């Protein structure tokens, strides 16, 4: 288990976390992040956590639409 001082590569990796998961990094940046992640269990755990956190939040906040609303929307269609 790595005990890590928060050094520059981990700081940099932390900064790339969001755009990495959003797939908005350039190819070069993505490879840089992955190279660091391959060798750093500290960052790797936090990246995996962030990915699962997003999924968790998305599932937790989903609220089904009332079927009545669906009917109301369908009724807004232009009559033929």
């Amino acid at each position: 288990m790595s005990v890590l001082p928060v050094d520059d590569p981990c700081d940099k990796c932390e900064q790339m976390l969001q755009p990495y998961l959003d797939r908005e990094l350039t190819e070069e940046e993505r490879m840089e992040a992955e190279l660091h992640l391959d060798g750093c269990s500290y960052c790797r755990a936090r990246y995996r956590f962030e990915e699962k956190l997003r999924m968790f939040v998305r599932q937790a906040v989903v609220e089904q639409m009332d079927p009545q609303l669906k009917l109301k929307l369908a009724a807004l269609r232009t009559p033929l």
Partner: protein
Amino acid sequence: MSDTAHEQARRLAEGARDRVRFEEEALNLSDQVYSVARHLSGSKEEAEDLVQETYARAFRSWRSFTPGTNLRAWLMRILTNLNIDRGRRKQRSPDTQPLEEGDYYLYNRLSDALPESNPQEDQVLRRLSQNDAVDALSAVPHDFRDVVVLVDIGDFSYQDAAQILDIPIGTVMSRLHRGRRILKKQLADSVERDGQPGDGE
């Protein structure tokens, strides 16, 4: 029937067919539209009104939609404009509130109370409840929440979110960044409020 009358009838029929197709495609997206609307507005009732208004307007102005472009983003643009028009959120959230925590903050805060020094992500995640997530998201100020909801719940790209909200992509990125950090701060606070404080905090 004359050729002109034929042509007119054909165009009318084609227009009607396009409209029906448009309306059906739009209705197929209603669950996704609602799930975003629900978190842009303060309540279920507000969200339902907003979605109905959105569809009423979309059906009226269907001709301004360019076929082949992103219908979901087009609907969302109507929805966010209506939401702003309602005047419910005229006040800008200040961009300047201090928020020093980085992106590893939540993991670090939650894992503090666990015995391992670098625990598995699932262990850390188990400290959060569904209610924590709902409350935390609703506590994020509007400008930031709009972007978080579009990207994280609505699954829109930065570019789509920028077009929907009519703001530069750089603003999307900074608000998203900040919004997610505020969300994480709220989540960390809610876990502590629920009575699972970390040692010595």
